[in-house]
């Protein structure tokens, strides 16, 4: 018969309960027991507790196998959430480039010594900043649903 994780867990709890009941009996009736009887109770008690541990270990190991896919799903979801933040960062950078381009446009329209070169430098820096940490696959998912 194949025991499920829950079966094993319930069985472990049963062994623990029997062990506790046995020890409770030993405490309540200890005064009327011989030393040999007390020793026998102690031996059985230890065995039952140990069986309970072994069954619980099997239960956890069996449940571990079942949970594997869910853990992988959560790890992927964590990655997706981090990726979504990276997309927001990339859009900020892209808009930063647009703003820098506006600065360049203003400098071109009203030229004064150094302004065009300076604004061009700002634009280049914005582009370099955006290119510093590109997000993989971010470009395709940059628009929110409904926007």
């Amino acid at each position, binding site marked *: 018969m194949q025991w499920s994780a829950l079966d094993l867990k319930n069985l472990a709890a049963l062994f*623990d309960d029997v062990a506790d009941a046995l020890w409770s009996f030993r405490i309540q009736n200890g005064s009327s027991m011989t030393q040999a009887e007390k020793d026998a109770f102690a031996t059985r008690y230890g065995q039952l507790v140990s069986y309970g541990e072994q069954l619980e270990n099997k239960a956890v190991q069996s449940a571990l196998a079942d949970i594997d896919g869910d853990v992988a799903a959560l*790890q992927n979801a964590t990655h997706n959430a981090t990726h979504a933040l990276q997309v927001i960062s990339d*859009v900020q950078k892209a808009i930063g480039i647009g703003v820098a381009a506006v600065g360049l446009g203003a400098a071109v329209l009203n030229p004064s010594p150094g302004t065009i070169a300076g604004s061009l430098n700002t634009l280049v820096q914005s582009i370099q900043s955006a290119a510093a940490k590109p997000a993989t696959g971010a470009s395709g998912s940059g628009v929110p649903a409904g926007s």
Partner: protein
Amino acid sequence: MCSSACAPRSRRYVIACLVIPLLVICGCTDLDEITQFAKASQSVGSAFPSIAEQAAESCAVANSFRTPQMNTPLPCDVYASLNPALVKINAALFNYIASLGKLASDDLSKVPGGMDKLSDELKQAGVSTQDQAKASAANGLAKAITKIWASGYRQHELSRIVGDNNQAVQDVSDFLSDYAAGKYRQSLNDEWRYETAYCTNAASAAEPLASDLLARKCAADHSRIELKIKAIKSYQAALNTIKETHATLNKERGHWGAKQLSKELGPQIVSLGSAAASVNQAF
């Protein structure tokens, strides 16, 4: 020819340009409660490795109480292989919750971007004051557009991730509560089972002083173990809170409202805070 007809149209266009972004900003729900919820859960999750270590230690302590009569050893070697896997699963759940919190955060400063230094850079570049004003206005507009976009995108992604992973959160929370934390509780209970058996068997009317000291030592250990078991129960309660909250977020996704989130997540955040205090007191 079109001046009389076009003027109201262009005015309507300008009004639409101003009003629509405002409506979008106001329509985006403040997800701060989700961020607070995620933060509150972290200190519970971070205690798990200590709980795992304690369970292995409890097993070793239990075996130290063996006597010639009660000499069945508990299987302590299991923790070497079991604990790393369980710690990893706990981390998967709490990292996921943390990532939801970060995604829900409305503080764009936490997201690295390249815009904030732009005004200074324009000044340094020698752009005239008038042109700096234009560029600065464009910068402000760009930030507003980013905020509108990021709020909508954030909510959309958060909603999708919550929906896709609700079942996994339920399953992993149940596993961690019923099996992992359940196993660790058993380890602590068994430490006490072995210790109390030792104390009972070793007590002797012929040696009243030694028996009294032993009884006091056992009582102190019992209090210590009870405190840790209580903390594990708090961890289990926190997992239940996380499970329920995630289910609520999933049920109401698509129509999250700031007021509703505050009403529903507020008590859960308080509950997680209490659990964190209990867990961190013991571990």
